[in-house]
């Protein structure tokens, strides 16, 4: 981000006492040294009262004294120290505080406390079963003590389930939390009744440990989603959604993107993205449309040219007039397509919910049958209700509640270490089903940066001093091909090329027209001309990622079909497809075209994984069965994608699919185990064989078995990246 010198006052927050403060996301801080360096340097800036870095979230809070704050100086300081920084806008700063996570963690703490301490009083009862030394009076006392701990804890920690159950019943549906809530409350009620009349069967410890074990599953699930979402949001923030608005006096002010209105004059420095759809008023430059259309070749623009949001300004500062607000820009059209895709995705039924749909009616009818059955057999309301409650307790889906989250958190943790963020457990489930992979070309199969493929190296070495003086990607790549060396004083003609002196003669490096060649070629090329010599041509191509071919081969070995859908020109796509060894490819596709192609695949019953990075891929990412984006993708694609890989390696894609398939197998094993367990436990409970001790052992035993099975996924060759 090049907002260092800009005015960031829009991002300031006021502390309650009126002192301004700013939250910044800082990338790259890793250790105590970084904390010390950052905090000391930022706190040393004039006016700064305090600076504190949260290493876990990468968030730096800066507090100024009353009066003027200089947020730009902080960003500048951080950049000079070598850390990238982006400001949190006040509302994202609020959203970043994880209220749900706190509530779950507190509930989990209370339930854990309750479980341990309720057990403390029920263990003597279980011991008494064998030693026969415990009198009825003492047993009842123990139950009362156990109730004193377990009942309030259960009611407090169980609210997570009660609320969700009530909400789902209001919508006329029953989710997994309904039998959990009924089971827990019925257990507590029956236990109180049993204790009050001095009976032997009270299940206070079972009620609280049920809540505890289920909360572990919920907490893991939440952590998984929160971690991945934060990481994705941070990535998007690094492409900060701010624009430089020009005031009437011509001064630049950094403005949150949402505040830009049509008619505003905005300045776009080289290296920045066009923030909203806008028309050029001043300046001549080249723009890179790779993220918008997938085209690798930069286009030159001048006053009057219309540019869609997301295009990257390469050469020179442009002054533009906004033609649409951010929410009406080209991006918004894509946003609507994304929403449509997300809706179709929300119809996907997760494995756990499929299991619950089968499970809930079964358990409820079993419990009802038990109650009615024993009533008919003349056992009395008390005994019949006790046995019905026992059915609900032992079948209550502890193992089922842990079966999926335990596996998914383990799998996602392993993927995270390999640099892959999984945004939700459902994404992992869908990834396991993939049988068709669609790649975008630019920035995905290729590095998104050009490399010289054709040209005389001796001539290139002569041209290099000129190339080094230019910021244009083609020039940079030429300079890179030659290696380090001196630059010459050169004049950059925006949108044309550079001009300078080589060996005492005038020389030019740039477009064909710049050196006097007529007829622009479609290829990505650079011409070099020295006064009195014939111009020479260098051709460039977007390089394939080094592991593209191996990745495609690995995917095909897994029985997955591979295809390229690109917005780039036919020639460029054909070369990339040949290089990567992909037989099926289509070029020149619009965003809508990509979505249509994916729909066609879905209609054929294929489960498609889309890998893409550009604005033009965002809708397709959302329409695909599951989607992957590289960390360098446009923020809209990062949001639309289900998974994000941070490194440069494509090889993580087949790895992730393999791991997802393995995870699905573990989930299925866990479900099979839970079913088997219920097949034994439910009839036992129906016939009144389940005592409080048996219930406690069965419940924790089955949960442990399921968790250990999930942890098997953590082993293997998942080395940290």
């Amino acid at each position, binding site marked *: 981000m090049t907002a260092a010198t800009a005015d960031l006052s829009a991002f300031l927050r006021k502390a309650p006492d009126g002192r301004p*403060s700013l939250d910044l996301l800082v990338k790259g801080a890793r*250790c*105590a040294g970084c*904390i*010390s360096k950052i*905090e000391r340097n930022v706190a040393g800036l004039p006016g700064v*009262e*305090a600076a*504190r*870095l*949260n*290493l*876990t*979230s990468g968030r730096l*809070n800066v*507090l100024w004294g009353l009066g003027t704050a200089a947020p730009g100086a902080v960003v500048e300081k951080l950049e000079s120290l070598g850390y990238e920084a982006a400001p949190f806008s006040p509302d994202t700063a609020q959203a970043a505080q994880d209220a749900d996570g*706190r509530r779950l*963690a*507190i509930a989990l*703490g*209370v339930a854990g*406390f309750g479980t*341990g*301490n309720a057990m*403390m*009083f029920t263990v003597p009862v279980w011991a008494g079963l064998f030693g026969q030394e415990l009198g009825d009076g*003492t047993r009842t*006392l123990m139950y009362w*003590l156990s109730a*004193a*701990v377990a009942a309030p804890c259960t009611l407090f920690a169980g609210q997570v389930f009660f609320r969700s159950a009530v909400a789902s019943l209001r919508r006329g549906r029953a989710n997994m939390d309904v039998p959990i809530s009924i089971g827990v409350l019925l257990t507590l009620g029956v236990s109180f009744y049993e204790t009050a009349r001095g009976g032997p069967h009270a299940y206070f410890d079972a009620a609280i440990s049920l809540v505890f074990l289920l909360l572990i599953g919920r907490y893991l699930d939440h952590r998984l989603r929160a971690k991945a979402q934060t990481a994705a949001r941070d990535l998007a923030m690094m492409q900060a959604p701010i624009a430089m608005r020009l005031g009437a006096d011509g001064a630049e002010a950094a403005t949150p993107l949402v505040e830009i209105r049509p008619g505003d004059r905005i300045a776009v420095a080289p290296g920045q993205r066009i923030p909203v759809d806008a028309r050029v008023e001043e300046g001549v430059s080249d723009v890179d449309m790779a993220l918008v259309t997938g085209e690798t070749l930069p286009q030159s623009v001048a006053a009057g040219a219309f540019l869609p949001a997301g295009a990257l300004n390469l050469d020179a500062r442009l002054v533009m007039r906004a033609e649409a607000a951010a929410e009406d820009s080209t991006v918004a059209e894509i946003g609507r397509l994304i929403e449509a895709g997300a809706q179709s995705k929300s119809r996907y039924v997760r494995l756990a919910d499929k299991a619950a749909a089968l499970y809930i009616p079964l358990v409820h009818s079993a419990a009802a049958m038990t109650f009615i059955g024993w009533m008919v057999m003349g056992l009395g309301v008390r005994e019949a209700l006790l046995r019905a409650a026992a059915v609900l307790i032992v079948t209550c889906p502890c193992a089922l509640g842990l079966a999926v989250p335990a596996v998914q958190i383990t799998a996602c943790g392993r993927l995270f270490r390999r640099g892959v963020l999984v945004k939700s457990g459902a994404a992992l489930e869908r990834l396991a089903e993939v049988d068709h992979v669609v790649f975008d070309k630019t920035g995905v199969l290729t590095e998104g940066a050009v490399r010289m493929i054709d040209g005389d190296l001796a001539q290139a070495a002569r041209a290099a001093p000129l190339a080094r003086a230019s910021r244009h990607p083609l020039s940079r790549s030429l300079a890179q091909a030659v290696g380090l060396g001196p630059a010459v004083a050169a004049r950059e003609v925006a949108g044309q090329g550079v001009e300078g002196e080589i060996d005492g003669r005038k020389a030019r490096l740039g477009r064909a027209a710049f050196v006097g060649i007529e007829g622009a070629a479609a290829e990505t090329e650079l011409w070099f001309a020295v006064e009195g010599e014939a111009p020479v041509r260098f051709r460039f191509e977007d390089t394939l990622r080094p592991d593209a071919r191996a990745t495609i081969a690995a995917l095909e070995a897994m029985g997955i079909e591979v295809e390229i859908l690109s917005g780039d020109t036919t020639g460029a796509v054909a070369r990339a497809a040949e290089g990567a060894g992909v037989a099926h490819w289509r070029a020149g596709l619009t965003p809508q075209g990509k979505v249509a192609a994916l729909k066609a695949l879905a209609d054929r019953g294929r489960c498609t994984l889309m890998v893409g990075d550009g604005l033009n891929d965002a809708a397709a990412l959302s329409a695909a069965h599951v989607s992957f984006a590289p960390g360098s993708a446009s923020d809209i694609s990062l949001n639309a994608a289900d998974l994000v890989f941070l490194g440069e390696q494509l090889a993580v894609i087949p790895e992730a699919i393999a791991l997802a398939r393995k995870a699905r197998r573990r989930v299925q094993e866990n479900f099979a185990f839970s079913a088997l367990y219920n097949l034994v436990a439910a009839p036992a409970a129906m016939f009144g064989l389940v005592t409080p001790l048996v219930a406690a052992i069965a419940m924790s035993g089955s949960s442990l078995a399921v968790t250990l099975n999930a942890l098997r996924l953590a082993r293997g060759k998942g080395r940290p990246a």
Partner: protein
Amino acid sequence: MTILLILAPLSMLLAGLGLVAFFWTFKAGQYDDPMGDAERILLDHLDAGPDDPV
């Protein structure tokens, strides 16, 4: 068995203290930055505690 009358309330009291301590650690922000806290013990200058500035 009368020892229970002392030990049971005592154990509840101790357990309750544990719970209160848990709530306190939560409120004091001890889980906000586990990575940072682990690294900060290596720093010589003992600067601001975990709760200031917010």
